[in-house]
Each structure stands twice: as structure tokens, then as C-alpha cells.
């Protein structure tokens, strides 16, 4: 079959992949640098073809609560935003986690904190991985490093969030969102029918088949402390199973490497160049790119630490993921940090220079 190849911005790829993968609804609010997602959906009018609902909400708070309710009824729904907008969504994400409701948040990071800048940033690692909402919960966090992965992860996100019944964050950044690349688009998948939703989501609050069952409700409220703890423990068991089975990463020349960069998203794309340059100079350099930021590839990093001399974490932040890398290696090798923040994107040469520091005898 002929491949469907197009040239797209990362944000456009998210939008077009959404209706191709059979998402039922998008609810969002404009914010730079991700407004092309809502704009592309509005231009492509998927409600006339696949029946996907697209709605510009009055705020990010309304958007996430629309996703919450849509997911509660068994529909595959999503929103997208950027750093301060995603901050506003944290309460809703916590509710989704608590009620075990599937739903997708695409977070295209910019420099912060506060209103920050509209230039790219990766300073929302903590926000996504450790949760800005209240309570003990996690989201699965996928970090694409290309426009192709922006499209592909829309399919993976749909699969994982319904498999595990939980919110999922695609944590991207302004570089991946705005840059254009060639993308092989996924074929069209039909949206699920009412019968399929009824069969696959017996927990959903949509009224379907009510006469033959007890009523369903979605609530995170539990006034009995022992019962609340029981719910939390059950969620922790689920999170532990996810940590055992869903870790994803890309190992780039890392398996025999003595010096390893750990980087995700646009930082990984930039760092790849530094790895290649050091390899050409005869240094055993490599890179590990976490694809799932939660669950984090802790075991893989620990394994790499057993045969390398030093690691460097590269991020568009003042240093966030680096703490998870340090925790993973448990002091076995030194872990340095190279970061740019506030919207500054380093050149490959700057990363090369920082990486080379590690190799000094």
C-alpha cells in the first residue's frame, strides 16, 4: 500500500493524527506555542467526516473538565495546552486519575515559570511526572522527539490510557510542536460505536444498558478514611504494574558507551549530534532517550551506569529530570547537568562542549 507521507508541523501532526486514530472529542483553549492543534482541527472539520467533536472552550479549566466528563462516558477525548495552561488543568487531571478516567493532555512546553515566555521549554517535567494536582497519583507521560512521534504517540496514547484507565500526558515542547518534518500518517481508524463502548467500558457513565445493571457513577469523594486508603492502595498496585511493563526508551549507541547523555524530546535531537561528534573522535559516547518519562527507565539507566564512566543530562530547564537520573544510578557514576532555560535552546556545539568536559582525563 502506498504510504501517506506529508510535511507537517508537530502541532498539526497531533491534530491530524487525532481524527485518524478515531478520537471522539477535542476540547481546548488557545495558547502559544500549540494553537495550531485547535486551528488545524477547526480547519479540517473532522465532525463532518469521522464525527469527532471539536470545541473551543472558555478556559483550560473548562477544557480539562470536558475531557474528564467525556472520558467518564467511555469516549476517547483530549485537550492540548502549554505550560501555564496545563498548570490550570492540574485539578482536573487529579480528578481523572482518582476516578480512573482515560483522557489525553498534549502539553507543548514553553519557558517558565509564570507567564514565562512563548519560546520552547522543558521545565514542566515535574508538572507532568510528579503531578501538579493534589493527592497520590501518576499520569503516563510520553515524550516525542520528532513530528513522526507526535503522530504515532496519539495512537499509543489511546491504547495505553484505555488499557490502564488513567490520564496520559504527551509532554512535548515548542521545538517539536513548531518544527516541520516529513510524517508517515496513520491510516484512518473508525471511532468506537456505542455497542463497542458498552462492551469495552462497562464502568462508563453513559446510561447504556442501565436497566440490566446497577447505576454507574464517577466520583473521587470518599469520606471513609480506610476506604480512601484502600482506593489509593489499589491505584498504587496499578502504578507498580505499569512501572514493570510500560517503560519505553531509545538507546542510541549507549550499550557499549563510557559516556552517556540522558535527554528527551528536543534535547535528545540536539544531543544526538554531540554523541556522533565524540564517536568520530574515538570516544565511546552514547545517549539514552526516555520515551516514557513516567514510568521512568530507572532500571535501564542503572544498568548503563554499571559500565559507563559518567553521565550528562541535557534539558531545557534548570535541572529537573537530572534528579531522577541521579536517583537511578544511586551514586555509581557522576551525573552532570547541562541546561538552558527561559526559552533558550542550546546549539549542538554547546552540548558537544559540555559533553566533552566529561571525557577530560
Amino acid at each position, binding site marked *: 500500500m502506498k504510504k501517506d507521507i506529508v510535511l507537517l508541523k508537530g502541532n498539526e501532526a497531533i491534530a491530524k493524527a487525532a481524527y485518524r486514530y478515531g478520537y471522539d472529542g477535542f476540547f481546548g483553549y488557545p495558547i502559544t506555542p500549540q494553537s495550531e492543534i485547535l486551528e488545524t482541527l477547526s480547519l479540517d472539520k473532522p465532525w463532518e467526516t469521522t464525527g469527532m*467533536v471539536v470545541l473551543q*472552550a472558555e478556559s483550560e*479549566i473548562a477544557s480539562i*473538565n*470536558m475531557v*474528564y*466528563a467525556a472520558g467518564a462516558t467511555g469516549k476517547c477525548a483530549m485537550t492540548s495546552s502549554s505550560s501555564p495552561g496545563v498548570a490550570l488543568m492540574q485539578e482536573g487531571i487529579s480528578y481523572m486519575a482518582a476516578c480512573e478516567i482515560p483522557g489525553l493532555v498534549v502539553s507543548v512546553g514553553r519557558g517558565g515559570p509564570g507567564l514565562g515566555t512563548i519560546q520552547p521549554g522543558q521545565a514542566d517535567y515535574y508538572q507532568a511526572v510528579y503531578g501538579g494536582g493534589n493527592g497520590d497519583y501518576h499520569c503516563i507521560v510520553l515524550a516525542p522527539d520528532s513530528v513522526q512521534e507526535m503522530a504515532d504517540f496519539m495512537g499509543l496514547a489511546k491504547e495505553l490510557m484505555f488499557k490502564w484507565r488513567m490520564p496520559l500526558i504527551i509532554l512535548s515542547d515548542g521545538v517539536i510542536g513548531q518544527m516541520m518534518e516529513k510524517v508517515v500518517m496513520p491510516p484512518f481508524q473508525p471511532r468506537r460505536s456505542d455497542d463497542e463502548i458498552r462492551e469495552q467500558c462497562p464502568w462508563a457513565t453513559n446510561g447504556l444498558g442501565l436497566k440490566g445493571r446497577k*447505576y454507574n457513577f464517577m466520583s473521587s469523594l470518599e469520606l471513609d478514611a480506610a476506604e480512601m486508603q484502600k482506593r489509593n492502595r489499589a491505584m498504587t498496585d496499578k502504578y507498580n504494574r505499569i512501572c514493570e511493563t510500560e517503560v519505553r526508551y531509545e538507546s542510541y549507541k549507549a550499550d557499549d558507551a563510557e559516556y552517556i547523555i540522558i535527554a528527551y524530546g528536543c534535547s535528545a535531537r540536539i544531543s544526538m549530534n554531540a554523541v556522533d561528534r565524540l564517536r568520530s573522535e574515538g570516544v565511546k559516547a552514547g545517549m539514552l532517550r526516555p520515551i516514557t518519562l513516567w514510568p521512568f527507565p530507572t532500571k535501564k539507566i542503572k544498568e548503563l551506569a554499571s559500565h559507563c564512566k559518567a553521565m550528562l543530562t541535557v534539558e531545557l530547564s534548570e535541572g529537573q529530570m537530572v534528579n531522577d537520573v541521579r536517583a537511578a544510578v544511586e551514586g555509581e557514576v557522576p551525573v552532570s547537568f547541562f541546561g538552558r532555560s527561559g526559552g533558550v535552546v542550546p546549539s549542538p556545539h554547546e552540548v558537544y562542549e559540555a559533553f566533552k568536559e566529561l571525557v577530560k582525563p
Partner: protein
Amino acid sequence: MTTEDIIQPENRVYGKPSLMNDTPMHYCPGCSHGVVHKLIAEVIEEMGIEEKTVGICPVGCAVFAYRYVDIDWIEASHGRAPACASAVKRLWPDHLVFTYQGDGDLACIGTGETIHALNRGENIAIIFINNAIYGMTGGQMAPTTLMGMKTATCPYGRQPDLHGFPLHVTDIASTLEGTCYVTRQAVNTVANIRKAKKAIRQAFENSVNKRGSSLVEIVSTCSSGWKMSPEKANQWMEENMFPYYPLGDLKNVNKE
């Protein structure tokens, strides 16, 4: 002749709606919520659409509404019920989708969601319980608290310079192009309960038939929050709330 012989279905003039669950009542004596819950159960039962109905509960005393009416419910975070309902109705366009909200939820923390859902003309029904106080958290000032009225956070009475003015949110709703039906009712007398039921029925039919947004305000009592006996609370409501929040239709575009 035994009691069973006498109580035959044809002799009954009243029965518990089949959609009311046997849940121990958590509302205070005299509270309006119980009556309104029953009306909702009756209307859904009479319309026969429980398999195509989604209710959205608020945060507040009605946070446990889902325990009483035997339909599928979603518990919204504080104030966000109209956003939840908007999404559900758009994704399930043939369903009855309604929210059940108090004054703090609908007219304070959720004002944005309320106004915008109504202004978009979402095909949803909003049941709005206005008792001019925060009941669940122990009787604090609400956006609809009357001037001079005493609550835990305006213990000397609501004053404009300190607290601003009561919000006429239902009047605002009636000016929005997306609303098709805006009405203010009460459940303090049998006659008013019947009128309120008719209003709820019309709002629910508007949702199913995609006629636009409906808002049914029920001016209500809060005996505990107002620190009055149920009887005194009803009397106080009639004397103080009704002049400020007069009963009747504010807008009904589908009326023949």
C-alpha cells in the same frame, strides 16, 4: 380484609418513583433537595429515558445526589458541571444531559462555566438550587445571599461595601441568546412542587430535543444554615427570598 387487599395498584394515589434508590437521607429535615431529587426521578421515569440520561452532580450538599436517583452520574469538581455537561451532550447528542448545582457552585466558582455553556446554547438542562448560603461547609455567605442576611462569614449581615451585592444569575441567563428556557420555581407548597415538576420536565425535553439551554432555578430553604425550623424557614423564604427572587418564567422561547 388485610392491608395488602386494600392497597391495590388501582387504589394508589401516590408511590415512590421507581428511580429513587433506598438510600438513607443525608439531607437535613426541611431541606428542598429531597423534593427536587424526587421530581427529577419522577420526570426521568415518566419520560422513560433512563438509559439515555447522564446527570452531573455538584460539590456542595448535593455531592451525593448520585446515591438517590438510579441513573448514571458524573461528579464534577466545584463549579465545572456545565463544562462536563457540554462535553457529554456533544458526544451523546440524543441523551438527556443535566446538571444539578447550588448557588455557590453555579454562581460563584463556576460562573464562567455557567455563562459560557448557556451562551453556547448547549442542549443541556441546569437545575439550580438557590438557598442563598453554602450549606455543606456550614453556612457561609453565597453569591445570592440577601442584603443584611447573616451567615458565618457575614455574621453582622451582608453589607454592600464589605461583600458586594447578590448576583442575579438567572436574570443574566435569560439575556443570553443560547438559552431557550429560564424559569424560577420553588417547592414550598404542593402547588409549587407541581409547577416545579412541569418546569423540570420542560427543561429535560428541551435537552432531548436539542432546543438550547434551559435553567430551572429552585428558590430553596436551608434550615440548618439559616438556623431556623423547617416551618420558619419556609415562611422566611416567602417573606424575604420571593420578593428578591420572584417566581415565574423569565424566558420561554418554545412556548406555543
